[in-house]
């Protein structure tokens, strides 16, 4: 064990993981988004709400990557939209340099958005098919003209294409002339154009082929080092998230179930949902299939319009007891691990948090 941690330190040093965190660049506090459910045509009456995001809090530090994982419908993409203020939050705050983004509008919001950019999942639908690559990337300078003076824009776009590994001569081509991986590079170039500090990536590689995924992931890591970017990396592929993230948050039905460093989450998960999620991931190693600890959950994710009382995971949890249906667990370091020098001591929203290694073959 001692050897292992020494090894990890070496890896951390090699990967240039920020050890000293300093001030967070983005602080998210109790963020909520409820989409109203209405009935009636003429007189719309609200009959309920889909609680897509229901009280999420986390910090993002300079230069780090925070991964957010969860199944479809858990609210991870809504979180991304809330951070950009593309959706208005129902409640809660997002502080960027002391300013609450959720309250901003107009010119102040535009100024903040320059520093927070987004890369979308589907490179086929997120690029306008009638615009050339030069116009797609250059459009950002029309909106924020202070970044590049008019005469300099073309050169700037070519520079960006070069940075993301595309031939600068492709500036006059249209999106359909590129492959999926190349299109995603265009999307990344657009995200970089304004020299942002934070890039929110919503499933940036899930539409790409396996052999192209690695190219894009490597590019994103390179750019992060070069420009000291902070990433929020949203994905459902747990292996990719582990690879790229410094810290990882696991979401379930609009709430964070567990959050910690990649080692804490993957090697020492304490929330049963994280454990189930990790154990369900197929590992590309046939020798591991016999002796891996697999937890197969029953049933589906409940509807976010009518989430279970107490702990939201209890309907699928094998550890659930009476307490779980009455008392909502808070996201905090579990009492039994508090003050202990163990990697299990990280925030987990479970009454019966317990460490279990599900990733390694027993």
């Amino acid at each position: 064990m001692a050897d292992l941690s020494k090894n990890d330190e070496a890896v951390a040093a090699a990967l240039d993981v920020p050890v000293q965190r300093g001030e967070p660049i983005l602080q998210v506090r109790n963020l909520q988004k409820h989409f109203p459910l209405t009935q009636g045509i003429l007189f719309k009456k609200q009959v309920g709400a889909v609680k897509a995001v229901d009280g999420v809090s986390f910090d993002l530090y300079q230069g780090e990557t925070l991964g957010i994982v969860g199944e479809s419908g858990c609210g991870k993409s809504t979180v991304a939209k809330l951070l950009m203020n593309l959706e208005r939050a129902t409640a809660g705050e997002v502080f960027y340099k002391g300013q609450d983004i959720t309250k901003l509008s107009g010119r102040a919001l535009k100024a903040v958005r320059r520093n927070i950019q987004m890369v979308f999942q589907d490179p086929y639908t997120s690029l306008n098919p009638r615009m050339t690559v030069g116009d797609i990337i250059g459009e950002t300078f029309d909106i924020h003209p202070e970044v590049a003076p008019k005469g300099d824009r073309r050169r700037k776009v070519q520079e960006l294409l070069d940075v993301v590994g595309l031939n600068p001569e492709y500036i006059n081509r249209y999106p359909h002339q590129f492959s999926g991986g190349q299109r995603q590079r265009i999307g990344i170039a657009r995200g970089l154009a304004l020299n942002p500090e934070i890039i929110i990536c919503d499933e940036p590689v899930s539409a790409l082929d396996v052999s192209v995924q690695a190219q894009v992931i490597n590019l994103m890591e390179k750019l992060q080092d070069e420009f000291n970017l902070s990433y929020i990396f949203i994905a459902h592929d747990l292996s990719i998230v582990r690879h790229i993230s410094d810290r990882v948050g696991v979401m379930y039905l609009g709430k964070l179930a567990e959050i910690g460093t990649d080692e804490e989450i993957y090697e020492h998960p304490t929330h049963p949902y994280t454990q189930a999620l990790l154990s369900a991931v197929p590992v590309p190693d046939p020798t591991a299939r016999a002796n891996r600890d697999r937890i197969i959950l029953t049933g589906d994710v409940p509807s976010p319009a009518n989430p279970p009382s107490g702990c939201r995971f209890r309907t699928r949890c094998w550890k659930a007891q009476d307490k779980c249906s009455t008392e909502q667990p808070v996201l905090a370091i579990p009492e039994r691990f508090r003050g202990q020098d163990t990697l299990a001591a990280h925030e987990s929203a479970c009454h019966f948090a317990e460490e279990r290694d599900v990733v390694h073959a027993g």
Partner: protein
Amino acid sequence: MLLEVRDLHVEFHTRDGVAKAVNGVNYSVEAGETLAVLGESGSGKSVTAQAVMGILDMPPGKIPKGEILFKGQDLLKLKEEERRKVRGAKMAMIFQDALSSLNPVLSVGEQLGEMFIVHKGMSKKDARAKAVELMDRVRIPAARERVGQYPHQFSGGMRQRIMIAMALALEPELIIADEPTTALDVTVQAQVMDLLAELQREYNMGLILITHDLGVVADVADKIAVMYAGRIVEQAPVHEIYKAPAHPYTRGLLDSIPRLDQKGQELYAIKGLPPNLLAIPPGCAFNPRCPMAQDVCRTDVPPLYEVTESPVPRASACHFWKECLHG
């Protein structure tokens, strides 16, 4: 041998020219065995399966050459009418996207029952009872109440179970599953794969699993065929291929996926892009992306070299398979 595909070629005649989607594929499956066909989009894995099922759109598709032997009988020589009797009854297919593969205006009970009415001449009432039985078998809770519901009323995992039920209806000997879990979340994916494996054991069916996910393959397959640009580039028992790949493409794929159980350094990335099927590179199709490519790779198409013989044969279509295997 349950199914044997021999030297299959499929091409598509398009406005821009002839796209050679499948260029001489050989594989076989026995009863109770799982063959995984692994490849990226455009590698020809799904087209091969469609040719086997006989659901290829012709034209524009065309099969200029090859044999598909099902229990010794060449399916390509059958008349469409005879072919239809095989399809569904002897071999069935599970598609990736259950929502678009199911008819949205018919209840699931009608869609499941249709199989029995068409193939077995059952009455509507008996067919409905059979549908309930099938839904029970794929573990859909409250089958009796849900048999009258429509596809949109089911969750993604439940819909995929209905697809499986439909494929199983006539107790086929061979099932082809084309990316059966790609659209599902991991926890549901595990449920569905488990169910599929269990049913396969129960009925001793042959299973062809088409996927791009190396993790899923490792979990369930007995043997694996890796496809690239319409050809099988490596074929091997599943344990051996992960231990020591004998083709640079397989090696590249294995190195380029991040692992859940270890935090790696920079990922290995296969350079370049998959080839355009209208203009497959001469020689080995992988040569422009291959780190080991030499002059011979740019001129000579490598045959499928035999790597080891018994018990399960292993083959690689690389001139330098020895170097790859040991390097």
